[in-house]
């Protein structure tokens, strides 16, 4: 596994929320999906993932349900709430503004 790039907490939240935007997943699946979609650059380890998941649940942006996984094991599935969706959209907009601004600065030097 490659060295994980450090992710700021707020960014991790955004990634998780985005990942859950279309379907409910359990923690393992979330980390695999992020790893895959980012072309194996981003590696979210469980030390950061699970606290983040619990925090997001505490704040009401995602909700959890116990269900059956692919191999018939019980797993905790997270899904986006409506409030979470709004928050995600807001943060997404912020992120785009921020990264565009950084890009502009980097182009100059």
């Amino acid at each position, binding site marked *: 596994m490659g060295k994980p790039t450090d992710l700021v907490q707020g960014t991790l939240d955004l990634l998780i929320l985005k990942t859950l935007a279309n379907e409910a997943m359990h923690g*393992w699946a979330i980390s695999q999906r992020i790893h895959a979609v980012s072309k194996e650059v981003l590696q979210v*380890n*469980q*030390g950061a993932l699970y*606290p983040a998941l619990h925090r997001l649940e*505490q704040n*009401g942006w995602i909700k959890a349900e116990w269900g059956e996984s692919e191999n018939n094991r019980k797993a*905790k599935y997270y899904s986006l709430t409506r*409030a979470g969706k709004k928050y995600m959209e807001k943060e997404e907009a912020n992120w785009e503004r921020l990264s565009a601004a950084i890009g502009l600065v980097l182009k100059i030097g």
Partner: protein
Amino acid sequence: MMRWVHKLRNGLRTLLQRRAEERELDSELRFHLEHQIAQNVAAGMSASEARRAALIDFGGVEQLKEDCRDMRKANWIEDFLQDLRYAARMLASSPGFTAVAVLTLALGIGANTAIFSVVDAVLLKPLPFRQPENLVALWETETAPGSFPLNGMDYLDWRNLNKTFESMSLYSWPNSANLSAKDVSEGATIIRTQANFFSQLGVRAQIGRTFAEGEDQSGGNHVAVLSDGFWKKQFGASPTILNSTVKLNGEPFTVIGVMPAWYRMQALADLWVPLDMAKDKLGPRGNHQWRAIGRVKSGVTTAQARADLHTIAEGLVKQYPGNNRGVDAIVKPIRDELIGDFQNQALILFGAVALVLLIACANVANLLLARSTGRRREIAVRNALGAGHGRLVRQMLTESLLLSLVGGLLGVLVAYAGVTVMRSSLPATIPQPNPISVGVVPLLFTLVISVFVGVLFGMAPAVQASSADSCEALKPKGMAGDGGNQRGHWLRNTLVIGEIALSLALLIGAGLLLRTFANLRATDTGVRGEGVLTATVRLPENKYAAFEQGRIFYTQLLDKLQAAPGIQAAAITSKLPVLGGNNGYIKIPGQQEQEMTGPLVETTSMMGDYFRAFRIPLLSGRDFTPADHELTAKCIREYLAAKTDAERAALKKYELPAVINQTMARAFWPNQSAIGKVFENFVLFRVIGVVGDVRQQGLRTAPLPESYYPIEWDLTSPTAPFAIVAQGSGTREGLTGTVRNTVRSLDDTLALMNARTMPQIIADSMPDTQFEAALLATMATLALILAAVGTYGVMSYVVGRRTNEIGIRMALGAARPQITVMVLRQAGVLVVSGILLGLLGAAAGARLMQGLLVGVQPIDPLTYSSMAGVLAGVALLACFLPVRRAMRVDPMVALRYE
């Protein structure tokens, strides 16, 4: 906003379903781990390798779980509960410490709550009347300084001519009367009021009713309202009292109501009856004998009301230049009238009690510091394990708060006890417009104080904890380098010095007041009270309406008393010494042109051995003889028979005898003998004797000029109350019995009222100093005990810490006395610093008490030095046990101590 709801809901769920959540978290992480292992295996590792790699990758499971839990916590609630549980465990594990701390706090907080309850009931709660801000008390001025009761005619003019008052109500001073009902025959104190008195205040009866309009006209005014206390005491609170009849001085009155228990504006009254408001019954111009209250119209200020009455008063001065010269209106808000004097006292009481609480806090802080020093290791370990600095401080504070809240709870009990005691022992000078109880506001106050106190003394160990150096603390104890926690050390010493200083200040305050009390007690009232019994009788109108009847009765009474066994001197008098208030102006023919000027002269009339009974010295001249009484009687008879002005003017031929006191002699005839001099008071009087001064108005005021006349002078109203004076060698009960029997033998319908010994009367005339001194002395004693306990605690601790050092010294050859000196020197520094600080503090604060002190300066060397000595002695005593322990140290044990 929704986030909070979610947070709260989740937090509550976490609290309530912790186990279930733990299991869920566990299976969630386990799920992840299994998948990781599976992935490793799929990547080619063996089963055990895969597992190992996954676990390493996973990192610290516990930490992860903790992090997740942290995210879910309803943070502050759970943390707080955890702290609370921990604190409770810590406190329970050292019961001795906890008991001492809680008791100390209970005493301090309880005392504060008790005093606050008094202050709340008296000063803070609104007066229990309808719109009390519009009520005022009315007085008059005269040419002599001070405020005086009203004249009846002036009152009527004020009432009829004013523009700013909604209503006014007249009432009398308390008067005694014989009361007889079915099973009761007692003396009772009565106040007569105008019919609108209670309705003006807005006070209703608890059963029955108060006076109705028109009941203060003659014919309708034979109704009475009882006080709650009198009803309970004499009639057993029986509801059949309504519409029953009682006889006052022989006349029947119907009881129409009973006042509620909380009504205490006229605390002395047993009954109220309506006045007769007919003009001729209110006294002529010039007689000042009434009290009055008024209700101003809404929006009118006291100043406006006063200006209004002032205009009327000015008009009256022009109309009646003789009687009304210098007479003006005084309008006082009823609040000032009822409780104005109390504010100063309240401040002092509060100050004292607050000091006690501070000392208690210092004590508990010291105790906590001692304990936390012993817990330095535990704190260091927790620090090392990752408890944040803030978390530790929070935990310390939680412990302190728990202590102080429990102490506060117990303190409420202390407060209840204190209030119950005070309620019955409060002197009459401390007004009680509202009943004193530990109500809602004082309880809230207790809560606030408890929290405040908890934070206050909780800072001490918290400060110490924050400076704990983990490394240092984790080293084994007893090493040579263990210099101890410097900051904590300094803190403890400061606390002890502070305690001692505060205790000394309190002791000095109490000492000053006690000396004032002693001084007042020792003040020469001018009379010797030992062995003197006094009581009042009042003849009923139906049998003794005429002068002759009264004279015969009292003459016979005096004869019988003088012959009775056990009585060495007896007298009948119109009023007793020290209970002044009957005064007026005199005129010196040839010297004074105008009436109503000059000093007021107190007047007393008597018959019998008045001066001998009270041991008032006769300084020159002689006492009254039977001939003097005869002459006065003759004059009175003529006065009563006189119908025309000419007949009245003829009375001027009489020169009645009078005895005067030294102050009067000096005031009117300075530098000469007063014997033989003449003065005028309706008729002419010739001075036949001069006696020593008596303080007629309590101990704090200088004696007034006083003149004594033969009793016939006041027998023009034979139904007025007269006092019996009996000086004898028997017991109080014996004398009272003798007097009562003598009175009854002449007329068995008469009640003996207010039987008191003279020392009792004198003591009753200075009640507030006694009360304050007692209260302050109690506080000071409390403070002393607390300071002693505090000093003991510190010394114990100090000796304990130096046990090693002491052991070494002794092993090296130091003798026991040297050790003692060393330990005592350390104590001595603390005590001396505390005493010096206390002396300075007391000197600064004593100035505030200046108004209360009599005969002693705020900075009185005797009081200061003796109290400092007492405190030093107590502190020394407190060191005794620790010092003994130091001396008993076995060097071998001490050196091995780890």
